[in-house]
């Protein structure tokens, strides 16, 4: 037992003094999480710049521009005809909205047309902007239609009226409805807490936990290559003790890494309660076990340090992609089905249930993933143990 703990202590000391491993284990994931949350978090789903050319110069076209300008996430630029055409020609912009002459009359008549000048498909941001323009123009047209409908109703009742009074009464009701709409929207969502971070943090933590431990297998290959492992076998240390020590060292450092990253996530994004944090760490035991077994397997198979490094880089990155670390994948697609064979997928499912939905081991998603990861750890260990060599590849 002392010999095993000596190996674990030595490995952890090496890890703590290895700047590169610390960089890949802690600084890199934090930098990427910051980028991801900066891009996707914060609740503002789009930040597009929309370009408008107003050929009508009417009150109604001004109302359309004002309506677009008030939409959160749209940065509106009004261009003149020469500038708009030149910028599209130069491809400085991919599309712009034209409010054509006669727009105001179109609103009054209930038949509105807009124009979009574009290159290619105008870009997805351009398409989103034009759909917003249609919505705002529809609102303006509907208001005009509403006015006509009220007049038609009064005509149908055979009443004589003052048009100014009709407009004034209608405006009063509109103002009242604006304050207290007849129908109110209720926004609800699955796993709202933490916004983007609840999705990205688990994916990136799991990815880097597995990546760092796999990368650590390079050291075992180096020890085999320079005869360190063989020399250890001349001491009273058995192969079983050596493997156990390496496995535990991998597992403990992964656990430390995951704990620190999630603790930062807790402080930064407020993603946890004490209970979910404790359960997340318990779940991490399975992630660390599976990762450690995977690291041992890579070190057992790799013939050179280069193979260990590139095997780790490619397998962990491909697993992260297939396992949905960065983008949600349709589970019924081929990629989604392949993803189920990766450690990342099961780590992501469990972590996201706990971080995003705030559930614990009572949730089938969590305990099933936990059991699968433990099972994977056992299978990977069973593959690694017979393949592990203490000599060779000099």
């Amino acid at each position, binding site marked *: 037992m002392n010999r095993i703990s000596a190996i674990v202590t030595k490995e952890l000391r090496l890890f703590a003094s290895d700047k590169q491993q610390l960089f890949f284990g802690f600084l890199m994931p934090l930098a990427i999480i910051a980028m991801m949350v900066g891009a996707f978090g914060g609740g503002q789903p789009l930040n597009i710049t929309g370009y408008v050319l107003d050929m009508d110069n009417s009150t109604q076209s001004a109302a359309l521009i004002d309506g677009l300008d008030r939409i959160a996430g749209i940065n509106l630029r009004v261009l003149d005809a020469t500038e708009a055409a030149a910028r599209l020609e130069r491809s400085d912009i991919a599309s712009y909205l034209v409010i054509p002459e006669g727009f105001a009359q179109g609103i009054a008549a209930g038949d509105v047309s807009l*124009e979009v000048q574009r290159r290619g*498909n105008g870009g997805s941001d351009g398409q989103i902007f034009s759909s917003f323009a249609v919505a705002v123009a529809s609102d303006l047209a509907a208001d005009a239609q509403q006015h006509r409908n009220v007049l038609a109703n009064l005509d149908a009742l055979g009443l004589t009226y003052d048009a100014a009074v009709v407009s004034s009464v209608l405006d009063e009701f509109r103002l009242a409805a604006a304050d207290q709409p007849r129908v109110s929207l209720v926004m609800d969502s699955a796993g709202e807490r933490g*916004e983007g971070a609840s999705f990205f943090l688990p994916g990136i933590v799991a990815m880097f936990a597995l990546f760092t431990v796999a990368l650590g297998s390079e050291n075992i290959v180096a020890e085999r290559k320079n005869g360190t492992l063989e020399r250890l076998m001349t001491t009273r240390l058995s192969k079983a003790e050596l493997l156990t020590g390496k496995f535990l060292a991998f597992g403990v450092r992964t656990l430390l890494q995951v704990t620190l990253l999630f603790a930062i996530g807790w402080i930064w994004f407020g993603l946890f309660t004490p209970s979910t944090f404790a359960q997340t760490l318990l779940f991490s035991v399975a992630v660390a076990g599976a990762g450690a077994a995977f690291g041992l397997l890579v070190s057992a198979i790799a013939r050179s340090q280069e193979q260990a490094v590139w095997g780790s880089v490619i397998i962990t990155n491909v697993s992260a992609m297939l396992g949905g670390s960065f983008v949600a994948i349709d589970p019924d697609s081929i990629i989604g089905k392949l993803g189920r064979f990766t450690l990342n997928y099961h780590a992501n499912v469990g972590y996201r249930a706990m971080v995003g939905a705030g559930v614990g081991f009572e949730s089938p998603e969590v305990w099933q993933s936990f059991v699968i990861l433990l099972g994977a750890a056992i299978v990977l260990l069973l593959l690694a143990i017979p393949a592990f060599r203490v000599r060779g590849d000099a």
Partner: protein
Amino acid sequence: MRSTMWRQAALIATKDVRVLLADKSAIMFMMIFPLILVAILSTVMAPAYTGQDLQMEIVMVTHEGAGSISQGIIDGMRETAAKLAVVQALPEVAHQAVEERRLSGYIEFPASFSQDLLSGAPVELFVFAHPEAQTMKPALESVAQAIASEITRKWVEAQATAALAMRYGGEEIHEQLAALLAGGTAAGSTSHNSNVSVEFIQVGPAESKSVATHMLPGYVTMFIFFGLALTAEVLVGERQNQTLDRLIASRASRGSILLGKYLGNVARGTIQAIVLLGAGYFLFNLDLGYTPWATFAVTLAVVLCAAALGLAMATIAKTRQAASAIAVLASMVMAPLGGCWWPVWIMPFWMQTIAKFTPHAWANIAYSKLLYFASPPSAVFGEIAVLLLFAAGFGAFAAAKFRIEQ
């Protein structure tokens, strides 16, 4: 003297290229790994890159039965909504699908919707979306808002008609008014009918592009910068093990070493770009644009810039580990910031502004213009100039700070 410098630089560059071609791990990282990533991402992201106009599928659910107002709204929208594919689903099925991330979200009419609407009680309309549904969440919200506005508008119309009728007609108009409102203007008779049309006027050709055409240029940019940034580690290693000292001892000048290393980086980057774009063209149906030479010119500017950045990084780092860390960190931050991983418009405006300080952003803008918007080559001269300015800046920094000794 000058010809000697060029000859020495060429020899150093040739040696670096030979080292690259013999280095399996470098080839794996610079050429094969990006293609594996693109192959996977092309499959995963295919539905998001159809290249066609957006056709949003809006899922709606109601807890009411046939003949209800909510069912009438859904039926009306399915028949008339332009640019929207309205699909009705069972509430529990849709909810489960969102939780499992198979569906981004849906609009939900509660069980009391019709009753509340007709009785004058407050009415609620629910939008249930996954928090990470970046595009669908605002789309659902805007459709739901349109429904809510339409209902409110009809209600205002009925209220204003009633108030004006009482004002001008008095009590005796009451029965006629009730019949009129019941006949069509009542709050429950709403349906969404857009009377706004959009005409798209095309400047230049428009074709749908393969998924690789949308994704590969960003990854080419990222991996060229990444690959050449990692050469900083090699250069620092050569300084550490006195290889550079030995070159000086063999009469190579500091200038020829610097030039040789730069040309070596350019050659490595060019080989990498040819392999990636070639594989993209033959394996992934990559479209090189209407003027492929302009696409190659942008790529060359990217290579020149990345090669200089690799040298500049080598001058900052004191150890191989530091060089590797700086290279990885800079590459992995600049790539997403510059739009290699996602379109920049999903980032906040302040991040879009910062992105302009990365060469990646200018490269991606240039590729977008040439590959998606069929722009003429002159449209990317500005971006190429900026990339060359970056290259000159990095090169000048490297020339000023380059050290032979450890």
